[in-house]
């Protein structure tokens, strides 16, 4: 019997590199959502990124201080190979792409012909299209180090320049793009001004503290800020970051180790102070979102704080409930990078944090440990409504986002 031989179709892209279109890189995500049937669900990505330093020459033109604005402009015009003006950070220690193994983390150099909107809008649209997102909350990337800036004034200057650029040049480009504006937390009175100035801008749905910093979140100087944010009705996010120079991470000799701990550590410390100092009791209407630390740390901290609290209640007299009860009512969590090596542990974690109401899906695209929506969709212990809530409905409730009737499930 003759064997019928058919020719194979070569894929148009044989090797994905830094110039590959986002839609091609993420084609499998789109295909999965269409095949599995969740493409028309409400999907909200609470934590995606753009690399603001690619556009830093534009951002610095939004600096309010005329002297610094001129200096920054000159710096970017005249200096060759210089890092972004005024930014502190990790310079060459950016090993996220694992030596070039993950090209989209190395760089996004794909062609963008559309000049009607900013390039970042086009790139974000391509990611939204691929993940089938209804909304994407954009965060900066190198600016996540700003809390460690040796000049607190520069944190103020650069946060506000970025917020202006974001609200004037990026968000107007697509109503699906949202932001939690970055507040200069090391200078509380300026943080209040930032909330006043940008809190009502179209597309601004919350406020962000970049978590890597040494200011205690329970300091009395933040009470006015928390009251102001509470009154806006918009959440306050703590966006994690790493900081290799932190003494607690000084012995880590790999990015793998440092990043695994660092991206959780700052939020663990802030959460501990946040709860034990009774901030949720003082500002019961203030919702917080704990961003990009994954969620495996939460059950650990819940158990640890509950255990110690019962023995030392006199050190946390503002609390009327167990620490863990604040952590799964007033606090919300973004899902990425979702630790899923042990499904029993994942299920227990979802139960402890009350994922059905408190968990918000996030991709963290385009970073090396991004999650696609199937990470939630494929969870074996969730029913359809739980998946819909985590992928989008929880975020819609928290941030007041529009939900189409067919997306309510």
């Amino acid at each position: 019997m003759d064997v019928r031989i058919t020719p194979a179709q070569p894929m148009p892209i044989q090797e994905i590199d830094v110039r590959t279109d986002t839609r091609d890189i993420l084609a499998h995500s789109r295909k999965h959502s269409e095949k599995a049937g969740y493409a028309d669900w409400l999907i909200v990505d609470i934590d995606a990124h753009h690399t603001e330093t690619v556009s830093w020459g534009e951002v610095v033109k939004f600096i309010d201080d005329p002297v610094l604005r001129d200096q920054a402009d000159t710096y970017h015009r005249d200096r060759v190979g210089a890092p972004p003006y005024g930014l502190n950070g990790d310079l060459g220690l950016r090993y996220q792409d694992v030596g070039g193994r993950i090209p989209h983390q190395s760089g996004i150099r794909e062609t963008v012909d559309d000049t009607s909107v900013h390039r970042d809008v086009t790139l974000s649209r391509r990611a939204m299209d691929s993940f089938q997102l209804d909304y994407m909350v954009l965060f900066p990337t190198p600016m996540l180090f700003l809390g460690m800036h040796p000049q607190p004034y520069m944190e103020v200057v650069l946060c506000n320049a970025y917020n202006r650029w974001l609200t004037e040049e990026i968000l107007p480009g697509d109503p699906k793009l949202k932001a939690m504006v970055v507040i200069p937390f090391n200078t509380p009175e300026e943080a209040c001004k930032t909330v006043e100035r940008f809190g009502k801008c179209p597309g601004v749905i919350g406020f962000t503290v970049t978590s890597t910093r040494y200011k205690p979140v329970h300091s009395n100087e933040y009470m006015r800020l928390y009251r102001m944010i509470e009154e806006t009705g918009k959440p306050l996010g703590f966006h994690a970051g790493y900081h290799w120079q932190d003494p607690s991470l000084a012995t880590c000799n790999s990015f793998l180790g440092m990043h695994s701990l660092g991206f959780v550590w700052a939020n663990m410390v802030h959460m501990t102070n946040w709860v034990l100092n009774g901030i949720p009791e003082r500002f019961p209407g203030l919702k917080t979102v704990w961003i990009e630390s994954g969620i495996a740390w939460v059950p650990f901290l819940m158990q640890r704080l509950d255990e110690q609290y019962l023995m030392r209640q006199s050190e946390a007299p503002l609390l009327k409930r167990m620490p863990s009860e604040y952590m799964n009512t007033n606090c919300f969590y973004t899902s990425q990078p979702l630790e899923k090596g042990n499904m029993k542990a994942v299920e227990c974690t979802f139960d402890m944090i009350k994922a059905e109401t408190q968990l918000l899906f996030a991709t963290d695209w385009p970073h090396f440990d991004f999650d696609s929506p199937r990470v939630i969709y494929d969870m074996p212990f969730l029913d359809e409504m739980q998946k819909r809530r985590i992928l989008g409905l929880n975020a819609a409730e928290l941030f007041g986002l529009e939900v189409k009737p067919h997306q309510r499930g």
Partner: protein
Amino acid sequence: MQTVRVGRVNEFEDPGRKVVAVGETEIGVFCLDGEFYAWVNDCPHQGGPVCQGRFFTKVLEVLGADQSSHGRTYEEGTLHIVCPWHGFEYDVRTGKHPGAPDIALTPVTVQVQDGEVHILVD
């Protein structure tokens, strides 16, 4: 089961690959040291396009006789295909993750006859 022609042996670089679509299934056919291997283009981690990733030689840590560390080197001859989504690495020959052999690519049967490379697909 259908037999699908991927190309002639001499059309492959060594090491090299051709990533093809057969219906809705994407398959990476790899050539390494004159041998052919084929894997479904679907990373077991999150479904990334693993066969469209970059090649990297396996990395080793160099230890002294006293177990002290002396940096890293490559294990020449062991080639990995690395998923471009998240960096999961797989041995091109075995399809297994070097750090977790239970995590492995789905194999596809390859046949080489008369200078032609065929794969057998459901």
